């Protein structure tokens, strides 16, 4: 009787121990499996995030190609390379690129949207023809993508952020109007160029250089800085007289509070490089539209200024 009791209590002990071991194993398995599922979800999200970022960066870069503008940020310098007027119909090319994205890049799980500053959907062809240097609101823009006039505008309150602006207009065609006694300094400002003085409130260090590949005109007056509260214009005639080709540069007061540079031209083309030397590295160069790349799963997206 005693022996049976002994064996019985040992059996109970074994059963309890086995049950505990099995329960522990089951709990371990369940925990492991949950962690694996979590890890798998995290990895899927990571891959999806990486895909969204890749698509966003890919399209944002292409937009600059389609609009034929190149921008560079290097320390405190922002550089914009451009060609005036547009060499092709940029508006139509934007429409075509938009169709290309829909037909060949968008997938059932990824959608691509362009947004205006208010966050509303816009068709890509409505992308404003403007590059903005933020947070100083330096606007580099044209009336439309024909690029027949270039305006660089800054509100006077942001002048302190700009150390110098250098505009280099090159490969001008037709060439400067032929004059056997070519004297670049004879290009006259009207009204007269107003250098910075004691009474100047808004002074800007602006360097201008125009070259047709054979001869170069450098604005030596500009080295003294110009009083941006005045307005001065300069016309450079190009080609033969009958061609009626010219470039006009206007400096100074462009609006009530807007100042800077306007380049207008007729029957001519040119390459323009504009360097903005700022007093900080904390700035961004953007089109004033946003690109949003959405994934249907996990509600993941990337939305940022292009």
């Amino acid at each position, binding site marked *: 009787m005693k022996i049976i009791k002994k064996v019985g209590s040992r059996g109970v002990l074994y059963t309890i121990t*086995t049950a505990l071991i*099995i329960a522990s*194993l089951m709990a371990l398995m369940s925990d492991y499996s949950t962690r694996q599922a979590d890890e*798998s979800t995290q990895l899927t999200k990571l891959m999806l995030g990486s*895909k969204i970022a890749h698509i966003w960066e890919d399209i944002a*870069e292409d937009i600059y190609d389609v609009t*034929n503008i190149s921008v560079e940020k290097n320390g405190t310098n922002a550089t914009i390379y451009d060609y005036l007027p547009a060499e092709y119909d940029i508006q139509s090319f934007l429409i075509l690129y938009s169709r*290309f994205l829909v037909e*060949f890049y968008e997938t059932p799980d990824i959608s691509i949207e362009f947004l205006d500053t208010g966050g509303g959907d816009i068709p890509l062809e409505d992308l404003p023809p403007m590059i903005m240097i933020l947070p100083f609101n330096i606007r580099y823009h044209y009336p439309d993508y024909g690029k027949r006039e270039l305006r660089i505008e800054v509100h006077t309150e942001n002048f302190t952020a700009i150390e110098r602006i250098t505009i280099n207009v090159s490969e001008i065609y037709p060439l400067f109007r032929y004059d056997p006694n070519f004297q670049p300094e004879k290009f006259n400002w009207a009204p007269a160029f107003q250098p910075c003085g004691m009474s100047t409130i808004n002074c800007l260090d602006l360097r201008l250089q125009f070259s047709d590949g054979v001869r170069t005109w450098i604005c030596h007056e500009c080295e003294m800085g110009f009083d941006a509260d005045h307005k001065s214009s300069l016309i450079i005639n190009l080609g033969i007289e009958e061609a009626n080709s010219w470039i006009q540069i206007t400096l100074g007061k462009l609006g009530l509070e807007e100042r800077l540079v306007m380049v207008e031209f007729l029957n001519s083309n040119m390459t323009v490089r504009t360097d903005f030397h700022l007093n900080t590295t904390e700035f961004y160069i953007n089109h004033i539209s946003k690109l949003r790349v959405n994934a249907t799963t996990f509600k993941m997206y990337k939305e940022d200024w292009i």
Partner: protein
Amino acid sequence: MKKAFVLTLDALTAVVLLGLFLTAMSMEMNQTPQRTETAFLQKIGQDFLTSIDKGGILKGLLSQSIVQSEQDLLENMRHLPANVGANITVIIYAEQGQDLVIVNPIEMPFVEYAGQDTVRTIRVFVSEEELQFGIAYLNLWYL
């Protein structure tokens, strides 16, 4: 007799449970690295396509002969890791009437595909000179 039967049943249950546990563990352990490797392949693919796009290689394909394009792609694909197989397809589109039509497909197997799991990455590019668009599909797999 009864005791032996209970013990055998006990042992059998334990062995079955242990077997199930080990199988589940091994299945899970096999899956995890595979998913991580897929993520690595995706990253390699994206980096590769970004570098040849920013380096002007993709855009260059729009203005040169197919032979030259294939040479350029092959040269760049040699920079992929040695344990990775790859093939790339580049399709170039241009507007014709109302449609976007293929003007130039280039297929470039770097290593012949041998039926492994592949990861595909895509990149689009634009040529403002030629007014054309291109799309590059890169398939990658572990050798």
